[in-house]
């Protein structure tokens, strides 16, 4: 056909000219188009020239002409899909920006048409959804027609594609992008049931999003330098990407704010009892409590919407508070901008009163004794489902040095507990709350389990706490070796510490001991004894409180080891002072009393009293672990005439030792008392110790004493750590 030849001629002429004289080429094409308005190649050539020159307006205009007149041309569709892709991605290169500008240069109505048509051509659900979203965002009037169906498509796609986590691309688009458009558009009619369904989906998404674990990212990051992944700073700087979405689209700012915004819009649309204007979380909770006070039957048909208000508000508040609490006490659990030096914290019963709890004699400790027995009764009774005990408020000791915002943390803890109580205050609410939690599989949420454990610990329900801790261990699974590598950080053994404390509270001393000694394997003895805890305790002590205090303790060896020693001491103390003679227990007790000396002076004197009463005392580990100069002096004195000539068997196999010469002693010492080795070199030196140790005592005892004196500068915590590790069997034996 001659016409076609003409068109080819015209286009070819334009192409020939375009390099040296674009204007001439464009003039040719304008002419060509007036001759052959139906010819696609002419228009496309015109478009290409404008596009290359990045003249957005004229290019846009030509594109639209092609879009209308040549919609059957694959080239046009390719171009439109390139442009819509540029709208969807985050790239900032010149070409992408031009394409965006090109689209922006089109009039709104044209954009709308183009997006709709492009959407129709798109068969990938995700892409299609993103395209429709572009449309809905730009043209709110289209929300009425397409909003809900897009939302439903996304939810459907999510289930069709069998997404494991609610944090997936479909849900993200639905919750973050589509849902606000739908619910904020009052022209879109939505039944309450649908609104609640959407709120539920949003809550599930946001909660899972904020509590996503950092490990997931490592998978997504693929093959990166794995040695770097351990560093907390590296980890937090990693970008989280939801599969299928761009990095930008995967970042969600202020997720809780967004969720509560949805809550408030849904509440408004469902005609909840609400205040107008902005409200804080306390107000929200207060409103819900009020509702609970005035409505006694939530199953009443007329009160359904208030039941929903109470349940959804309290549920969201609950999870938010729990999240805040957990992210403060165990920050590494969540991905996010954690400060790398933030130390994990563990909630424990306070045991600082362990030294003063002398039971049997001394009338001057009457009220303390009463306190002890009171608390013991309470802790014993607390597991008998005695709900009256739950509500009582207990004091939690937090050091400002350990937490940046102790009050906020305690507030979150309190709010979470109150929400929990509220949600379980009636059967209707309880049922509804469970109905929400069940499909969310909240029982698999480790962070929630941690909170629930802390909550029952707070309530003093230690048996429940022990069960909860076992559940937690199941959720945690085996620790990866990398976690243990982190020296001094006991975060992976958080539950072990709590388990020990709970067993102790339950009076299960052997179990306490077992857990403590297991823990000791992971503890690295701090180089210096912590003096800070002493100050802290002495600060708190004067304030006499009813009931036991709790404390939030940094989860590190430095803080946990003293706590463990206190638990051990308290466990053994009862045994040591029981009516039955148990020199082993008494000896262990004395070893442990060295810690935090002289706090345990009273107990030590009581032990000495008991030894005097017995007249003899046998503890062959004495010279291994006792380096306290006061104690050494006391024992040296006991052997003297003035001390009562107590018969002390403190050297292993003393019978053998008595016969052997002093040279063999060295060998034996090497065998039985490896810790003494360092002091052997100094054994020849003559020490004049007070109270006439050398006077009339056996030579080997005197030498041993002298060596011990030289050891008194050793790091006591290292000595005690050895004690716990080496004497594990004996320690457990004496509690059997």
């Amino acid at each position, binding site marked *: 056909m001659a016409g076609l030849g*003409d068109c080819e001629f015209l286009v070819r002429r334009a192409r020939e000219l375009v390099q040296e004289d674009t204007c001439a080429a*464009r*003039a*040719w094409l*304008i002419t060509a188009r007036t001759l052959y308005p139906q010819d696609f190649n002419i228009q496309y050539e015109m478009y290409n020239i404008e596009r290359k020159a990045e003249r957005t307006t*004229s290019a846009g205009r030509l594109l639209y002409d092609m879009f209308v*007149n040549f919609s059957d041309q694959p080239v046009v569709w390719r171009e439109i899909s390139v442009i819509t892709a540029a709208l969807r991605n985050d790239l900032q290169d010149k070409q992408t920006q031009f394409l965006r500008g090109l689209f922006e240069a089109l009039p709104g*109505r*044209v954009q709308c048409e183009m997006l709709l048509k492009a959407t129709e051509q798109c068969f990938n659900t995700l892409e299609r959804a993103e395209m429709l979203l572009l449309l809905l965002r730009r043209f709110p009037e289209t929300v009425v027609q397409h909003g809900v169906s897009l939302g439903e498509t996304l939810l459907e796609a999510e289930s069709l594609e069998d997404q494991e986590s609610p944090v997936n691309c479909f849900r993200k688009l639905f919750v973050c992008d589509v849902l606000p458009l739908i619910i904020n558009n009052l022209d879109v009619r939505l039944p309450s049931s649908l609104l609640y369904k959407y709120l539920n989906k949003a809550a599930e998404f946001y909660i899972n999003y904020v509590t996503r674990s950092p490990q997931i990212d490592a998978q997504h990051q693929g093959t990166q330098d794995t040695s770097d992944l351990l560093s907390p700073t590296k980890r937090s700087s990693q970008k989280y990407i939801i599969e299928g979405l761009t990095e930008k689209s995967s970042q969600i700012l202020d997720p809780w704010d967004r969720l509560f915004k949805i809550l408030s819009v849904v509440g408004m649309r469902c005609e909840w009892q609400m205040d107008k204007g902005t409200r804080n979380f306390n107000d929200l909770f207060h409103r819900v409590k009020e509702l609970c006070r005035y409505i006694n039957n939530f199953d009443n048909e007329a009160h359904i919407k208030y039941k929903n208000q109470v349940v959804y508000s309290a549920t969201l508040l609950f999870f938010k508070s729990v999240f805040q609490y957990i992210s403060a006490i165990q920050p590494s659990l969540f991905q996010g901008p954690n400060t790398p030096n933030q130390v994990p914290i563990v909630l424990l019963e306070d045991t600082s009163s362990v030294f003063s709890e002398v039971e049997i004699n001394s009338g001057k400790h009457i009220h303390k004794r009463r306190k002890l027995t009171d608390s013991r009764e309470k802790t014993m009774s607390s597991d008998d489902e005695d709900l009256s005990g739950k509500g009582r408020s207990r004091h939690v000791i937090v050091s400002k040095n350990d937490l940046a915002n102790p009050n906020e943390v305690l507030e979150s803890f309190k709010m979470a507990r109150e929400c929990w109580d509220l949600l379980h205050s009636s059967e209707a609410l309880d049922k509804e709350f469970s109905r929400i939690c069940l499909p969310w599989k909240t029982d698999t949420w480790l962070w929630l389990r941690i909170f629930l454990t802390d909550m029952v610990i707070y309530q003093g329900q230690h048996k429940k706490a022990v069960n909860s801790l076992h559940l937690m261990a199941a959720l945690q699974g085996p620790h990866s070796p990398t976690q243990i590598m982190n020296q001094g950080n006991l975060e992976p053994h958080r539950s072990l510490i709590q388990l020990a404390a709970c067993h102790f509270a339950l009076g299960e001393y052997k179990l306490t001991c077992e857990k403590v000694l297991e823990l000791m394997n992971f503890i690295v003895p701090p180089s210096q004894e912590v003096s800070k805890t002493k100050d802290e305790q002495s600060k708190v002590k004067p304030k006499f409180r009813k009931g036991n205090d709790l404390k939030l303790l940094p989860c590190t060896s430095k803080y946990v080891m003293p706590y463990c020693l206190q638990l051990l001491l308290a466990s053994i103390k009862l045994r040591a002072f029981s009516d039955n003679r148990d020199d082993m227990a008494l000896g262990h007790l004395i070893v442990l009393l060295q810690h935090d000396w002289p706090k345990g002076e009273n107990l030590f004197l009581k032990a000495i009293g008991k030894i005097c009463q017995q007249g003899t005392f046998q503890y062959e580990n004495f010279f291994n672990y006792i380096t306290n100069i006061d104690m050494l002096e006391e024992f040296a004195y006991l052997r003297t005439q003035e001390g009562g000539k107590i018969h002390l068997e403190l050297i292993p196999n003393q019978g053998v030792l008595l016969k052997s010469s002093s040279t063999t002693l060295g060998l034996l010492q090497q065998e039985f008392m490896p810790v003494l080795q360092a002091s052997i070199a100094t054994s020849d030196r003559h020490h004049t110790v007070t109270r006439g140790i050398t006077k009339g005592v056996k030579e080997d005892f005197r030498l041993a004493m002298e060596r011990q004196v030289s050891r008194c500068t050793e790091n006591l915590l290292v000595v005690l750590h050895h004690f716990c590790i080496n004497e594990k069997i004996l320690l457990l034996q004496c509690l059997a």
Partner: protein
Amino acid sequence: MMSDIRHSLLRRDALSAAKEVLYHLDIYFSSQLQNAPVPMVEKGPIELLEEFVFQIPRDRGSHNKRLTAMQELQLLEILCNYFQDQTKEAVRQVIFSSLFSPQGNKADEQRMVLLGKLTSMAVAVCRVPVLECAASWLQRTPAVYCVRLAKALVGDYCGLVPGSIQTLKQIFNVSPRFCCQFITAVAALYDMSTEELIPPHDLLEMIVSWIFEDPRLILITFLNTPITANLPIGYLEVSPLMGLVRWCVIAPLAYRRKQKAAGGVPIVEDQNLYSKLHLSVLQGLMVLQTHLTEKSLYGRLALILFEQLVPLVEELGQLCEELNPLNAEQEMELALDRLAQALQVSMATGALLCTRDDLRTLCARLPHNNLMQLVVSGPVQPQPAHPTLTPAYYPHIHTPPLGYPTLPAHAALPAHTALPTHAALPTHAAIPPHTALPAHTALPGHAALPAHATLPAHPALPTHAALPTHPALPGHPVQTFMPGMTFPFRPMR
């Protein structure tokens, strides 16, 4: 009354008399304007102005009172300030007209000298009201005088001080109407008939930069003028279109001729400017089509008259013959390509009303050119069932320089099919006799003229004179460029 004024003025010195005469005539015309929309300009006021502004002595025998250069400058300042201060456009126009309309007497010489200086000064100090008056003057005054004014300005701004063209260039932003008229006058002045009448480089560059920035510039006067059946002969055209087409077509050969005269030194520097200009003219034509269609004037009003093409084609033919022995094939090809493009696009956009047969006759004696051949014989493909020349209705939400404008189409206005469209179509009677519709054009058959719905079908040609004539706001030259061009605009929420 005039004689009373005259007597009071005679006692004054020249400058205060000039000031005073403006004062009196201002009052006089203002009151006249209250009674009649168009004031009668009688002999009296004109004589007063001649005597007291142009210093032409009334009494025979007394000789010219020549003003000193200083006095003349002061007089210009008085005039400038007067037009600046008078807020009523109509009064300004009457006074300006009374001052500067040629009267066919000996004062005309002085008139033209002073007008040249006044306009030049207004350009220099950016006195928009004076420029607007000058634009109107250029429309109402025989072309010979207009050309003189253009010459004066070109002399002042392209010759005297290098770089002063930049000052003139700025006027684009404040008075596009003046620019449009100025271009028309300049195009009439430099008709490329001789080497001297090739536009100077600076001037060409400025004009091209104006039109390239916004091709709609060449339509401003047309859009702001009541449509009259036939233009009076001897006046400037209503748009510079024809003059610019001439420039673009003749330029390659005119420069070649100039090069020959200069002894073979190639002069190529301006050719890219002409290429740009040519493109801008075609784009301007596309804009024109939109307007003609919107105003239901498509096919009824020609901006390029067939008669005007005849001398252009003849001249081109002569130049080809003249230069042919010089191996000027390239230049000839370019000239013919441009002519063919201009003819085709003018015809398609409704600026030129003739048949392809007319064109064939017109161009029969020109050397062969492929594109011309194609244009003369028309497109080969069959007429499409739904002729849509420029198919999409495209709302102008942004108005940067237009690329390829399009016509409204029924596609975007679905209601149209239901309209009784025939009623509003131009009747044959309204079409000038020799303007048969271009044979090929996809003039929308019965459905693609959306303006009918709103335009009452007046038997007479509608005018678009109701448009504000002083549209430009400094700083937003493009946005408010042509207020006549209102487009459907729906703000986005």
